[in-house]
Structure formats: C-alpha cells, structure tokens
C-alpha cells in the first residue's frame, strides 16, 4: 500500500524527466503534437543532428566543461584540504577570524562579485580564458571545501601526526602521506558536489568565458535554443547529451553523494 502510493507520487513527480527523455528519440514534428507519447518508432536522428552540427558546438562545449570542471575540482580539493587542515590544527584568534571570513563566503551570491571579477581578471590578463574561469571557481568554492575538510580533520586523531613528526617527517609529508588518505569520504564529497555544481554552472561561464573561448555545455544549450527553437527534437537531444555525463557520474557515485550530504544532517 505504501509502496503503491510512493510509486504514484514518484511517477507524477518524474513526468518532466520522462518527457525530456522520451522526446529525444521522437520524430521532431511529433513532439509538439504529442509530447507525452512513447517514441514509436524511435529515431536517432535528433541525436545525430546534435552531434553532427557543423560548428561542433556539442563537442567544443563538452571539452570545455570537462576541462574547467576537472581542473577546478582538482585544485579546489588540494587547496581546501590544506587550508582546512591548517585551520583545524591551529587554534588562535587569527584562525577563528579566518574561519568566520571563509564560512561567510558560503552564502555570497555570484551576482555581487561578477562585475568586479571581470575587472580583476582583466587586470590579471585572464579575462575570457579557461584559467580565469578556473581561478574564479577555486576562489568562490574554497569555503565549501574548507567547511567539509575542517569538520572531517577534527575527527582524525592528532596523535597520528605527532608521531610522524617525532619520526622526522615534515608537515607536508605528514599531511600527504598520512592525513589525506584518511580523508577519502571528505574528498569524495567535495569532488562530487563541486563537480556537479561547476559542471552545471551557467552564469559564470556565460560572463567570464565569453563567446570567444567557446561555450560550456550549459551556455551551449542556451545558445542552441536560438536556432533549435522550433526543432524540439534537436534541442532535447542536445540537453540529453549534455546531461548524460553528470547523470552517469551521479548514478555511479550515489552512495557517496548521499553519505556526504547526510554526514552533516545528524551532526548539525
């Protein structure tokens, strides 16, 4: 009984998802007429059209998204793990102030800093470049990484590090050889969350990356809307293909995702 109700609610909830997927494989003209019908016969024409665009929009966008996301999360993990470690292991007024400053960054809307960011990047000569976007992402998401790592490091006994120090290891060595491997769940959480957020980011690549360096998958979809307005099939195909990577990523790492989210739900 409960199962039935749950299935019903989920079915109603999932209608938009169903529509999005079903129309990818339907003939273009049929989509507007009967958006909810099953695609019989199914066609791959839409996907081919999206992949085969003469300006290679999809492939360019995909490459850009992969590069930006991979670089950002790699750098973010390293930087926020180290900063988190520093904060967790050092007790002083200074680090308390630093922590407050960092955590308040969690709530800053990007609109507040986008206009000045373009100027900072222009001054550094990094405007509308991939490294510029990556640096922006790093600065913007560091608070989240620090938040996750700090909480986790506090749970690691400091004795481990101290005994390594007595054995003559430097702080760096201790950190990378002993502490970091123990933080796998935290690293996983950070990689997953930041990966999804940066992949799905729309406004920052739109403004920072600009038109001359190509698009990411999000801005690419937005641009293709102009031409595909009436060709719904191609549009849905493009969106489907653009979402596939992050969807597969999520489905494969579901458990870590949920664990990372709910790790804090009970600690508060």
């Amino acid at each position, binding site marked *: 009984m409960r199962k039935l109700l749950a299935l019903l609610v989920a079915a109603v909830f999932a209608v938009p998802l169903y529509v999005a997927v079903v129309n990818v494989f339907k003939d273009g003209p049929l989509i507007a007429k009967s958006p909810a019908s099953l695609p019989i016969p199914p066609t791959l024409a839409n996907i081919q059209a999206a992949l085969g*665009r*003469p*300006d290679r929009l999809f492939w*360019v966008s995909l*490459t*850009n998204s992969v*590069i930006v996301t*991979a*670089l950002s999360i*790699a750098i973010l993990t*390293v930087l926020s793990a180290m900063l988190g470690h520093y904060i967790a292991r050092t007790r002083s007024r200074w680090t308390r102030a630093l922590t407050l400053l960092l955590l308040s960054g969690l709530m800053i809307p990007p609109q507040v800093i986008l*206009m000045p960011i*373009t*100027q900072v990047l*222009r001054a550094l000569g990094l*405007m*509308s470049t*991939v*490294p510029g976007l990556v640096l922006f992402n790093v600065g913007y998401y560091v608070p989240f990484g620090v938040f996750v790592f700090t909480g986790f490091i506090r749970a690691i006994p400091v004795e481990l590090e101290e005994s390594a120090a007595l054995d003559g290891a430097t702080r760096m060595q201790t950190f*990378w*050889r002993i502490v970091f*491997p123990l933080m796998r769940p935290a690293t996983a959480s950070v990689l997953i969350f930041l990966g999804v957020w940066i992949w799905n980011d729309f406004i920052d690549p*739109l*403004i*920072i990356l*600009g*038109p*001359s*360096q*190509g*698009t990411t998958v999000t*801005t690419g979809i*937005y*641009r293709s*809307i*102009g*031409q595909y*307005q*009436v060709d719904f099939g191609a549009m849905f195909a493009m969106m489907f293909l653009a979402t596939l990577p992050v969807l597969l990523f999520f489905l494969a790492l579901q458990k870590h995702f949920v664990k990372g989210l709910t790790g804090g739900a009970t600690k508060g």
Partner: protein
Amino acid sequence: MRRGLFTLGMVVLLAAPTLAACEVGESTAPAGKKEITFLVFETPNLTPQYWDAAIKRVTDKHPEISVKKLVSPDQDRTTYAKQLLTSGQFPDVMIAVSPAGFAEGGNLYAWTPDELKDFEFPTNGAIKGKVYQLPANTQTIPVVYYNKALFTKAGITGEPKTYAELQQAAAKLKAAGITPFVTAGVHDSIGPLWAGILGTELYAKNPNWMHDRRAGKVKFCDAEFKAGAAKLADLAKQGYLDAKDVSKDYAAGQQAFLDGKGAMYAMGNWLAGELDKPDSKLEVGQFTWPSDDGKLVVPAFTGGGLLVSAKAKNLDAARTFALGFQLDKGNLDNSAKADGLFPAIKGYTPPTDVGPDYKLGYDLYAKGVAEKAVVPAFGFEAGDDGMLPGVTAKWDSSAVDLVTGKKTPDQVCAFLDAEWAKAAA
C-alpha cells in the same frame, strides 16, 4: 606509492588544458593574418551556415584578414554586446547592434563621408552627427502578413483599407474561431505590431516626434502616444490578440503563424525570407497597417548594418572587412533572399530570382516612397533618431503590460516618461 600516482594525476590534469586549448580555443590567428572578431546572432533564417558563407565571401577577396565568428547566446545581440563591453571582450565588428550607448562612450568607430558614399541614406542613425552603424538596408516594420486560407474561411474578401475594416476583419476571424493576431513577448515580435499602430497614430501626424521628445517638446503622456497605447490594449481586450502569447519567444511566435494558428502577423519584412523558402506551403498576402482614414502610412527603418569597435586591434582590417561585407553583391543578394532585406546601397537592385513575398513587400515599400508616406518605425530607430539608451527595453515590457492588462495606457505613458527622465539623468 599512492602519492606518486596522485602527483602524476595532477600533472596530467594540468597538461590537458594546454593540449586541448590548441584544439578548442582557436585563440591564436594563423601567422601573418590580421585577426578580427565578428559578433553575429542566429535565428531560424540566419543559420550558422548563412554567416559562414557570408564571411567567406569577404575573406576570399581579402585573404589577409582572418575572422573569428562570435555568436550571441540569444537574439538580443545588443544586450550581449553590452555585456561583452563590460567584461572587456568587445568584438571588433558587429552586425545589427544598436549603437546607442556604445557611441557615447567612445567605443565605436565613426564612418567617414567617403566610406559612406555608396549608401543611399548616408546620415541615417547618426548620433550627434556621426554615423557609427552602416545604414545598409531598409526594412518596413511592420507589414501585416495574413494567411489567405484563413481569411477566406472567415469570409473576408478584401484587404482592410481602414482601421475600422481591420477591426471588422478581426471580429469575423474571432467569430470563426480563428485567432486574429499572432504575436509573442519579445521586442522583435510585439514591437512591429505596436510600431504599426504608433506609425498611424503618432508618426503620421508628426514624423519628427522622437526628436521632439528628445528636446522635451512632447511627452509619452500626450494624446498621440496614449492613443497608440490604447489601441494596443484594446486589441487585447477584444480578444483579437491572445494575451497568452506573451510568454512565447520570437521563433515560437513565427512558427505559430507558419503553422496557421493565427490569421495575421504584423512583422518586419524580414519574414519574407522565411516565406519564400522553397518548402513553404503557406499562401500569404500583405498589407500595410491601416490608419483610421485609410491614408497610406509605411513605417520603415534604414540601418541594420555593421559597426566597428573604435578600439579594435586591427582597426584597418576591421573597417575593410565591414565595408567589404556590407557592399558585397553576393552578401546583399543573400540577405535579400534569406532575411528579406531591401539593401539601401546606391545602384543596387534586388536579384530577379527573389521570392514572390519579397517582391510584394518591395512593391509596398516603393509605393510608400512614391507617395511620400514613409515614416520611422517606432522602437526600431537607431542613434539620435530613437529612444534614449535603456528606454526601448521598457517600451517592450510596457507592450506586454498593455496586452496582459496589467497596466492601463495612462500608467504605461507615465512609466515611460519616468524611465525617460531616469535615462536622461
């Protein structure tokens, strides 16, 4: 061991972008060529292929120029150009972007009279006497396109010659269960409709209205503009305009007309490019927006050409490209066929193989010129001929407010006067 792998991973990740940048970035121009960036926008008529072919026609003649095509993410290329300027990525060449705002900030190159010698109206769109946008083509905005089959179905025999006849036709269509007017919520969709109304209500009586407004001699809340706003609101109130259309965008509105969902579509003559496509089966007629007394009024705009950034790295190449692009016969012919434009170039006549809808539109325009009935198209003017920077967007949203009934004509005119004052501050 694990750390070694990690370091290796980092190295690979950091090396990847350098490799990929060569493929995807395309940021370095081929050696020896002058690179310029060119901002375009895509519509169902203006496809990526259309632009590539047009660009190629010019670079074939000028092989020392290499063009990097930038595409606006949506049709609002003027807004996008502003964003690019603000973020330091202002393109070297742009097409069909309103120069208002850019010119005053010293961002655009002012064409010399010598460079303008091939244009029919070399002073159109001037800002403080200087021309920044090549006045390349004339467009009649709007022409009322109508679906012949639907007109017959509703029992309408002739084309409406007066506004009263237009309302009667609309009533007949509504009675027959057909939506009289198709529109959408964006500038290029509902703007032409209102431009038609304001052409007969405002510009026919005072072709200099906009200049007077800039001088403070008239206001939006004067009788003429209010009458124009009232007519628009009235069309919606009578149900001749579907208020639900305002959430549509340009392509959806156009498609609705092409699919026969509505009988009349007041649109710029660029629609001819779509109607003359070989696979188009729609039987369409055209007439100009009728005035109360039946006198001919043809709202038109000449401009729409290319603009060049004053700060382009290769300014000479940019200018050469822009002029070459604009004056190339192949490009002009194609723009006539694909986008229904009437090139305003001296000595140019449209090719003979243009479609019937283009010909019809051209004849209507020629009639307007002959009878000296051409007036500006409200909302589509450029430079000092148009509204102050930023006010046009408010005019667009006010059109939607009138159609949905959210605001009355009095509220709209007061709002526009206030916004004008803000922009003038």
